[in-house]
């Protein structure tokens, strides 16, 4: 199969992005809990973040002028410019060491661990797998995630 991924793309495998630090607020947890229709009181009160609260938590907010026509940031999710532009979330794999709570100061470090192609029903797909490691202010591990995004 001819490859859409060049050596230049594959050179990104193993590259780490600069760490991003975020402070988790109770208000942000409450908003997320309402938007996702949580029912556990500890989430609705913002005492603890639901597991999927981490989705895009370490994405760096970009100025509106830096968004593409589709609304996503240019070069979203540190990585090479791909020959396929439509990006979708593909899934995630989480190892949780402890819950995230309000006041946590978390540092996330992202690294591309794999890029591969598959032939989908409607054309080629490029899968990018990113590893995210999150630690707290004391340097203790909070979670590890393998997140897959799909370009089509």
């Amino acid at each position, binding site marked *: 199969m001819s490859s859409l991924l060049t050596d230049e793309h594959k050179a990104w495998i193993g590259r780490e992005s600069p760490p991003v630090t975020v402070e988790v607020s109770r208000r942000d947890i409450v908003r997320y809990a309402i938007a*996702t229709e949580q029912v556990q009181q500890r989430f609705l009160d913002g005492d603890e973040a639901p597991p999927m609260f981490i989705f895009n938590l370490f994405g760096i907010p970009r100025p509106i002028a830096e968004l593409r026509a589709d609304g996503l940031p240019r070069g979203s999710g540190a990585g090479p410019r791909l020959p396929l532009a439509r990006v979708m979330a*593909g*899934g*995630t794999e989480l190892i949780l060491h402890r819950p995230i709570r309000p006041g946590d100061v978390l540092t996330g470090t992202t690294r591309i661990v794999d890029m591969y192609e598959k032939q989908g029903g409607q054309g080629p797909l490029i899968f990018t797998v990113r590893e995210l490691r999150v630690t707290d202010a004391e340097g203790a591990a909070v979670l590890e995630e393998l997140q897959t995004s799909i370009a089509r």
Partner: protein
Amino acid sequence: MRIADLNVGDTLPERSHTPGNVSLFLYNAAVWNAHRIHYDERYTREVEKHPGIVIDGPLQGDWLAQCVTNWLGDSGTLLRFQYSNRRATYLGETLASGGRVTAVDADRNEVQVELWVKNAAGEITSPGTATVRLHAASPRADAD
């Protein structure tokens, strides 16, 4: 919930989800996602060629995590969780989340479950799995 009461094949409570424009807006605001396929129908149809507004994949991931956390309540903690988005779903669809116990490890006090989001046709749009650890019973779960 006690490990002694759990068996392979036990089901987790099902829940029905019918996201609307307002709930999708709030979700995408909460996760700071401005991708137009989640709110701009004309753009979504004409440019990205979807039949309608797309329900976020990670939102379905959240429903799967909730399927576990709601079943578990205060009885234990979620250790591992994974899911993948296999099939696009669209505004107007009613989806159902559910799950089933696939392994019970009484020595480690751990339980594995498989999870799914299904569409109205019964097709799995997002499969997943999770491992939970129940809090240790006191002093012995089988002694009372």
